[in-house]
């Protein structure tokens, strides 16, 4: 699971920036993130899903809850 990290210091070309939709924290995450991937905000610990990657902009949504039939 990817954890969103607070933005700070020098920009890292391997990371993208966005805003947590729950707590509005500025966060960054790896550029190789995929649509439907679940990430966690390091500030508020909310589980978020990458809904869409649109022209280098990432659209987040609240991740679906774990369901009874999830697993291996």
């Amino acid at each position, binding site marked *: *699971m990817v954890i969103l990290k607070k933005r700070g210091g020098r920009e890292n070309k391997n990371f993208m920036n966005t805003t947590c939709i729950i707590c509005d924290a500025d966060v960054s995450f790896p550029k190789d993130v*995929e649509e439907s*991937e*679940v990430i966690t905000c390091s500030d508020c610990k909310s589980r978020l*899903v990458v809904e869409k990657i649109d022209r280098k902009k990432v659209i987040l949504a609240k991740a679906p809850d774990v369901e*009874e*039939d*999830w*697993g*291996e």
Partner: protein
Amino acid sequence: MLRKIGVNKSVPNIYFMKTLAILHSTVRAEEKMLLKAGQGRGLVVKLIDIREQIFNPDTFIVDFDIALERSVSTVKGTYAVRFLEAMNIPVVNSSPISSICEDKFITSLILRRAHVQTPQFALVFGIDQAKEAVEQLGGFPVVVKPNGGSWGRLLAKINDMDSLEAIIEHKDVLGSPQQKAIYMQAYVDKPGRDIRAFVINGKAICAIYRASEHWITNTARGAEATNCPITKEMATLSKKASDAIGGGILAMDIFETDEGLMVNEVNHTMEFKNSEKPTGVSISGAIIDYCMEVLKHA
């Protein structure tokens, strides 16, 4: 003017111009590792979110050669596999394999029939039968687990009659119809760990120890993974269990007991992100290679 398309001679023929679809719901680290492994082998890899599909046989467009089922949701994944197989597309793992592995009781029956060492087990639908099953399984403690569960959830180690009555009542009142099919296993004392073997087409390619002070040793519940060498006994047991289930890509949970190794459970949509590093084996690569072998013989 037509461009001459050169052949990349470093890419084996079986991968050339082939398209692999990875069926998924939530994308985990494993799906990303598989994507990378497939692309690294020269495959065209499509990520297909099955939650966004309309599985209509009259309109569904198949633009891939083989599918690898990696949905986190067992129910959704099962329907996707069945649909694609009906459209004559090979899928890994196939529905005969997944229909066994997605149900612990069915898995236990298949393993037992093939004389694969596995814990004693029973299935009951009520408290009276559960009490009698405890006697048949050698007394307390016993383990109650959901037939379709994963990640170490809803497991109960039941040490006495009071606990048994409480758990069965909870399942009876709060549970779904599926939860009311109560799978019971004799409790097996483990040496603080169990083994997770990764078995592809009958061959154990690598394994990890999962160590925990807790009796539940899933890494999802915090167990620590370290490399476990494949012994001859493990290789033989893995092959026997795999043959009973029908091959495919399987993750086997194995106990070490005084009577030897025994297979506790078999998983058909394995997670392995914490296992490539300690074992040094590219499990993702091995899965992709297996998919291409299946395609070659399809």
